């Protein structure tokens, strides 16, 4: 499912050096679990995003291994420390090999 996937991220535009900020991410994805069946009884194959990572200036903030039990349109909220101005890089890895990326810049001061 490479089409119609839209990542949304809520991050502060500016922060004090060393401040802990809260990040909220949402990506539209149906997260087909592989458990559901079609009307004729055949299973619908699994198709999920299996990994999500967040980095700030190349340093890891969080790395999430996701399984089919994560809901449709996976949502994550977590905290990060902002030591200096830079960019948050958010990456989602799909089962089909697609990679969805988005970045958010943060100013310090």
């Amino acid at each position, binding site marked *: 499912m490479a089409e119609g996937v839209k990542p949304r991220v809520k991050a502060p535009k500016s922060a004090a050096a060393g401040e*802990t*900020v*809260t990040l909220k991410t949402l990506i539209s994805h149906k997260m087909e*679990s*592989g*458990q*559901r*069946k079609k009307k004729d009884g055949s299973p619908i194959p699994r198709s999920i995003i299996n990994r999500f990572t967040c*980095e*700030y200036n190349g*340093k*890891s*903030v*969080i*790395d*999430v*291994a*996701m*399984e*089919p*039990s*994560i*809901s*449709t349109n*996976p*949502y*994550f*909220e*977590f*905290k*990060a*420390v902002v*030591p200096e101005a830079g960019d948050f890089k958010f990456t989602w890895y799909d089962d089909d090999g697609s990679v969805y990326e988005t970045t958010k810049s943060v100013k310090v001061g």
Partner: protein
Amino acid sequence: MSFSRRDTLALGAGAVALTALPLRVSAAASADEVINAFTGGADVADGGVELTAPEIAENGNTVPVAVAAEGAAAIIIVATGNPNPNVATFNFGELSGASSASTRIRLAGTQEVAAIAKMADGSFKKASRTVKVTIGGCGG
């Protein structure tokens, strides 16, 4: 040695069956196996982990859960009653502000949800909570 078209097809089908087999087995892994795979069989102490989940979830398709454990390097969420009990593993990096995260998960029915934290010193801590689910979230 040369392969006829028929041989090649048979080989391909066999290979597909072989690769599909271990997937089936791992999907049926029990919650205990998932926890053991994470802890490596080490002792898990109760407490020290905060797991926030609703007491009653009307819709099992999207149940908000939050985990927090001070000083944790990684936290795993396990839904003991799901067909695939492993839900998510959070690995906190060096710029993580706090070892906490929240997300939304699927629950197949009323069951116990557990969070196991791997602390920085290598010990393990656990919290669990029973969530009543009105409508299951794994399809039929």
